[in-house]
């Protein structure tokens, strides 16, 4: 019987990481599900859903040689994947503000209290060193509709952040 694992790989970016990691997994008989790779501050990171017949230890053994060779940190978690749901987001939030500590906590705290679940989040510090600007875009789902977020957003806008809320309407045709 096969099992799903979440494999997280973090390390200094260099060409060929994905190729070598995926080759090691394929040669070891492990298949990939969803994955997401990104570079954060120049560091390589990937999360992969990995499926195969075997336990955590056998998966770790397959990953160890490539991890050592490339100096990567590898983390493995057993997960439940076969019933995973992908709800469609119904709201997109865009946040801009002068960078300071706590923007994400303020924004997501207010939105969570108003009933929103985050489905996707990306953020970036842009602007200049002297004048950094924080930009965050997140997709979410609010059961009671976008209006449920109005008060929370008004509060955040009072704190000097620019928070835009845009309903997402999926076109079906």
């Amino acid at each position, binding site marked *: 019987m096969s099992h799903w694992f979440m494999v997280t790989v973090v390390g200094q970016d260099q060409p060929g990481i994905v190729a070598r990691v995926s080759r090691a997994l394929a040669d070891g008989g492990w298949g990939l599900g969803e994955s997401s790779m990104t570079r954060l501050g120049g560091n390589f990171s990937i999360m992969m859903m990995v499926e195969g017949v075997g336990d955590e230890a056998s998966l770790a053994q397959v990953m160890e040689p490539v991890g050592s060779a490339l100096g990567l940190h590898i983390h493995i978690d057993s997960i439940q994947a076969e019933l995973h749901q992908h709800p469609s987001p119904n709201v997109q939030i865009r946040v801009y503000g002068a960078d300071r500590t706590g923007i994400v906590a303020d924004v997501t705290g207010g939105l969570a209290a108003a009933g929103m679940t985050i489905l996707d989040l990306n953020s970036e510090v842009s602007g200049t060193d002297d004048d950094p600007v924080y930009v965050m875009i997140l997709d979410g789902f609010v059961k009671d509709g976008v209006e449920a977020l109005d008060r929370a957003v008004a509060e955040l806008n009072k704190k000097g952040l620019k928070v835009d809320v845009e*309903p997402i*309407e999926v*076109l*079906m*045709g």
Partner: protein
Amino acid sequence: MAVLQILTYPDSRLFDVARPVTEFDASLQQLVVDLQETMLDGAGAVGIAAPQVGVGRRVAIVDVGPVLDGDKKRKPKSSYNGFLVLVNPEIIERDGEVNGREGCLSVPDYTGNVLRADSVRVRASDQLGREKELVCSGFESRAIQHEMDHLDGKLFLDRVISSRELFRRKTYR
């Protein structure tokens, strides 16, 4: 009157370029009626094109009324030209670009973000051969472009710019 069977990806007929309509006869009028029934049968659909039911003719219908009339307080920005029958449609002007989320009756498991012209001027005939020109914007413009893509053998999947913009709608297996 009949609800027709909808072809789903990867049926190769979805990739064929549909032929122009030359006879505005009873069979065309029947096709339009059947397309309407089929569209209304699909949950939340705002349009459908003949190739989606295996008819390789340049015929599509669009009606975004149900979305604009819904009980949601915030509706997508959109023109509304009523129930549209588009035979041999052509886009003769396009303006602006906007990103939005699309799904498709022929691609049941995914939604994705697609860039479309914000407004279009369309020339088309109706089922009786009367030519007309329409200016559509927002959600209605997106629906028309989505349906007209079907006439050229294209699905929204062909226009999704990155896998990050593609979202699985249903259960993961």
